[in-house]
C-alpha cells in the first residue's frame, strides 16, 4: 500500500542525509520526496511516499522517529488527508495539435505557463493519479520533458503537525 509519511525535521545539515540513509540501509523504498523549511526556519517539513505493508510501515515510522533530528512524524495515509503534486510539463505542440493539447490542459485545469511556436509548458496540480491521467491523455509522443514535485500533504481538519 502507498503511504504518505510527513516529517518535521530539525533544519540542520546532515539531518536529511541521515533520514535518506536510514531508508537505504534498511531496504525501505522512497517513491517521492520533497523537503523545504517551514514558517519556523529551524524546522524543515519533509514529505515522502513509500510502498509498505502494515508491519513495514510500523517499523519505518518507529525507525524514523528514533532519529535524533526528527521532531515529529505522521503517516498521513492513516487518516483523511489532502494531497497534491505539482507538475511542469513541456509538450511538443505543432500546427493541428496545438488546439487539441490546449483543450486537454483545460479539461484538467492545467495552466499554460510558457508558449513558443512548437511547444507549450503546462503547469498542473492535483493528486498523483490526476497527473498521471493527464500525461496519458496527451497525444502520443508529444511529451518532451516532465518534472514533478513529489507528493505534499496535510491531514484534514484543524489538527496540525507542529511542536
Amino acid at each position, binding site marked *: 500500500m502507498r503511504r504518505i509519511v510527513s516529517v518535521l525535521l530539525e533544519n540542520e545539515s546532515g539531518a536529511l542525509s541521515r533520514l535518506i540513509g536510514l531508508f537505504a540501509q534498511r531496504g525501505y523504498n522512497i517513491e517521492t520526496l520533497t523537503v523545504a523549511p517551514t514558517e519556523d526556519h529551524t524546522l524543515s517539513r519533509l514529505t515522502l511516499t513509500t510502498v509498505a505493508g502494515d508491519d513495514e510501515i510500523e517499523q519505518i515510522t518507529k525507525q524514523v522517529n528514533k532519529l*535524533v533530528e526528527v*521532531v515529529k512524524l505522521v503517516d498521513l495515509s492513516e487518516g483523511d488527508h489532502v494531497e497534491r503534486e505539482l507538475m511542469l510539463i513541456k509538450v511538443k505542440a505543432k500546427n493541428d495539435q496545438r488546439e487539441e493539447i490546449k483543450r486537454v490542459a483545460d479539461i484538467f485545469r492545467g495552466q499554460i505557463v510558457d508558449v513558443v511556436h512548437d511547444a507549450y509548458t503546462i503547469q498542473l496540480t492535483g493528486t498523483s493519479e490526476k497527473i498521471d491521467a493527464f500525461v496519458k491523455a496527451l497525444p502520443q509522443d508529444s511529451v518532451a520533458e516532465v518534472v514533478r514535485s513529489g507528493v505534499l500533504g496535510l491531514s484534514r481538519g484543524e489538527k496540525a503537525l507542529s511542536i
Partner: protein
Amino acid sequence: MEKLSGADMLIRALQDEGVEYLFGYPGGAVLHIYDALFNQEKIKHILVRHEQGATHMADGYARATGRTGVVLVTSGPGATNAITGIATAYMDSIPMVVISGQVQSHLIGTDSFQETDMIGVSRPVVKHSFLVKEARDIPETIKKAFFIASSGRPGPVVVDIPKDKTNPNDLFEYKYPKSVSLRSYNPSQKGHTGQIQKAVDLLLKAEKPMIYSGGGVILGEASNALTALTRKLGFPITNTLMGLGGFPGTDQQFLGMLGMHGTYEANNAMHHCDVLLAVGARFDDRITNTPSMFCPNAKIIHIDVDPASISKTIRADIPIVGDVAVILKEMTDLVNNKKSKKPDKTLISKWWDQIALWREQDCLKIKRTAEDDQIIKPQDGVKAVYEATRGEAFVTSDVGQHQMFAALYYPFDEPRKWINSGGLGTMGFGLPSAMGAQIAFPESTVVCITGEGSIQMNIQELSTCSQYELPIKIINLNNQSLGMVKQWQDMQYEGRHSHSYMDSLPDFVGLAESYGHKGFKIQSRSDLEPVLNEVFSIKDKLVFVDIMVDPKEHVYPMLVAPNGSMRDMWLEKGVRT
C-alpha cells in the same frame, strides 16, 4: 568568565563531564587537542597501538562500569580505523563518545590530506553524530553527545571537529551546561500502567511460563529488579548471549543461555511455553531460528526501552515501552500487592517436571573417549578457568567457538562481568575490551578467553598492556583453526575446510614474553588445574596462557537451520533431536 581555546574547551568539557580515561591516538588534525591534554592531569590518556583497539577499550570500559567510554582519534585513517569498534558498540547499544579530528573547515570537500567524511562513513553505525561548525558550540555539543550516548537505548555518538575549531589562538567564553534538552529527543521512561497490569494478569494465569532476558537488562541496570520478579513468580528464565549475568547463572531457576548455541532445556522451554516474558531482548535471528515457527503457543509480553525493537521480527501481544528496571519493579509491586492474585506454584509444577526431564539430557556434558583422556577439550579450559577464579572474574571473549564455550561453561552470577561482541561478532574485541575493564577495575581479575585466530586481530595491544601494567589473564583456546568456520564447513560443506586453518602461528609464550609479559603453554589435561592456579596467583603481570585444545571439537547444542524451530537441535556430531 574565563576564556579558552576550542581545544581547551573540549578537554575542560570532558573533565566537567567526569571523564576519567580517554583512549586515543594522535595525528595532525588533533594536535591542538593533544597539546591541551598535555597541560592537564585530570583525564588519563591511554595511548593505544591501533584505533580499533581504542574503541574496544572504551567499549569494554563502558560495559564493565556502565559509564560512557571515550575515544579520541585523528582524521582520515584514524577515523576509519575506529569504525569497526563504533559498529561493534552500536550493535550492542554501548554508550560511547568518539571524538575525531577533521581537516580544517576550508579544506573540507577538497580531498585534502587525511580527509574522510567521518559523519558520512559512520552514519549507519552511530546513534547520532555532530560536526562542529563553531568552536563556541563545543561545550554544548559535548554535553549533548554524552546525553544522547547514555540515555534511552544507549549507543555511540561521533563528534567530528575540524582542526581550525581547536586553534589555540581563538578564545571563547567557557561555560559547561548543567543539562541539555533536545526537543526532538525524549527517550521514554515510564511504562504504560494498563499494559503492565495486563502483563501481570497474563503471567499469573500461565501454566508454562518462560522469561527471556537480554542485554537491555544489563544496560538498564535491571538485574536486581529482574531477579526479584523472577524469584517471586518462581518461573524458569533464560538469558541471551548479551544478557548473561542479568539473572544469577548458578540459580536453580536459570535454564542457561538460549538461541543458536543455547541449552537443550532453554530452547525447549522457549518453544513450548504458553506465556513468554521478554525483557530487554530483541528477538534476533540468532535466537528465534525460523520466525514463523517461533514459540507457536505463546502469548508474548515484550518490555523494551526502544519501541522499534518491539514487533520488529516477532509480534508482541502486550508491548510495554520504557525503562526496564522501573517496569519490572512495578510488576513486582503488583504481584506483591495484597489484593492481587498470588503466584500459584502448583499451576506450574507440571511445567517444572517437564523442564527437569529436559535437564536430564545433560546437554553440556563433555563427551570424551578413553583415548582422549589427556586431550584438553576447550570446555575443560573454560571450566578450569571458572574454578580457578571461583566464577568471580570479569570475562571478555572474542568471536568463535571459544566465545560460545565461555558463555556456556562459565556461569555469571552478576551483570557486567561477561563482556563480548554479540551483535557484530567482532574478532579482535577480546583483548582491548579486557583492557578497558581492567583499567576501570585495577584490583579485579580480568580474563580474556580467546582463540588463536581472534587474538591476532588486535595482538599489538599487548604493547599497550605493558605500558599501563595491565595484569590481564589471556586464555588462548588454541585449536589451530578458525574453529567456528571449520564447524560450519564440517556441518554444511561436507568437511571442505576452505581456508579455516591457522598456519604459521607464532610462539605465543615467546611473543608475550617479548612484550615483558609472562607466558605458559598447557598441553595436557592434568596440567590445567595446577598451571591455572599459578597463573591466577600472579596479580601484577599479564599472563598469556596458550592452551592446546582438541581441534576437532564442535559447539553443541546447535539449532538446526534452515527451517528449524527452537526445539530442533544438533546435540552432538550427527545426533539431532
